[in-house]
């Protein structure tokens, strides 16, 4: 997956977890929490979805990398670069 494809995948997961949010204006540099109503259970949903969809394992002490879209894509790129986008 390219960084752009990873970003699309995260957007798809967010749209499922936070179906009331308008994600069209998401600022990749800002934290998700600044822009959306997300709590710790929602972040666990992101982790779970990545595991379910792509078998990507994210250790608990690395959850902090999922703070913003930019940091999430940067963190996931080495883990997902060999995955072929569906």
């Amino acid at each position: 997956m390219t960084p752009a494809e990873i970003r699309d995948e995260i957007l798809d997961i967010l749209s499922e977890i936070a179906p009331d949010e308008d994600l069209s204006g998401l600022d990749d540099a800002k934290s998700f929490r600044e822009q959306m109503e997300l709590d710790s259970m929602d972040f666990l949903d992101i982790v779970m979805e990545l595991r379910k969809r792509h078998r990507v394992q994210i250790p608990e002490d690395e959850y902090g990398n999922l703070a913003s879209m930019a940091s999430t894509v940067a963190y996931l790129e080495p883990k997902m670069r060999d995955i072929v986008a569906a």
Partner: protein
Amino acid sequence: MQPNDRTSQLPDSQRVVMTAVGLTSPNGNDLASYRDALLQGKSGVRNYNIRYVGDTFAGVCEFEATKYQSKRDIRRGTRAGTVGIWAASEAVARSGLDWANVDKSRVGIYIGVTEHGNVETENEIYNIKGFDYDTTYWSHHHNPRTVANNPAGEIALNMGITGPHYTIGAACAAGNAGIIQGVQMLRLGECDLAIAGGVSESIHTFGIFASFKSQGALASHADPTKASRPFDVDRNGIVVSEGACIFLLERLSDAKARSANIIAEIVSYAINTDATDFVLPNPERQAQCVKMALDRGGLDPNQIDIVSTHATGTNSGDAQEVQALRAVFGECTKVNFNNTKSFIGHTMGAAGALELAGNLPSFQDGVCHATINVDNLDETCAIPGLVLNQPKELGRVDYILNNSFGMLGINSVLIVRRF
């Protein structure tokens, strides 16, 4: 007519009245449309398919859940929570209360459930099956969704209620049991407003269908609208349904002080136990429960205008309830018997509350809705006063008695009076 039951002699601070009702049923999402469906003979049972069991029937509720919940909260919570939030919010919206200024710490939530947690547990097992039963794929939402207080807790979260909240597990007597709990807490002064009734999400668990089928108690018929047929010779089991019905209960003194619209007064109740079988009812204990409710209220069987029966459409259960009713009402000429499950199937934890609600408009319109789908009355279920297939004009209705019984031999009876 002046009421002459025992409850009417109590001080207003010990009398409890219903001041609003919210509901979702397979054939209506508010009391007016639900009542209309009952008077029109409109069934809410349809074809339904569920994992592993396949094609069957169910009573399904369709309402605009996003009126009171965000899509995120609907996703995060349970169906029992969603139907409960709908019914509780509808009740409050119709109560005339200035809800924003109600002291939420003085509101109690008492919700009857037949079962809770099966839906989510089945879903998670199905989910991890796709991952070779690796439990690291088990959802972190499972515990908050399956704790037994979940439906009541979701209502509290959604409505900002900080008083006591819990569910009452009482099998299919739960709807009545939730209301009874609300009455008791109001009388004890534990709350000033009680949000009380019952909910059911049971159509979303294949286990309940499969278990009834294994028991030989799951209804089948060529026409889904004819499948739920209590008292008919061709009845062959239960139609499982979802639903919710929640009343706003208040002490009469409080209701009068705010000039609330009073739907009915709860004048008596009783709960007892068969202690004889896991599944099979005990007509003797059922009759004792009905008699206890009458006696506690200082009422004679001849004073009851309508008995809302529990009958579910099973071969033995219907006949045994009628046996119990004959023992109590055998000499009465005035009483009428009807059954709501013939329209909507068995709404499980919501059944007691929904079946009572559908009868309450009788205080205004003087009509007893029917029991439908009785093409050939089973003689073992025959009792004078059974209102078959067409509504019956009664004129004035003063007292309604509501039966609701459940597995493990729990029996509940609630009696309400026009106000």
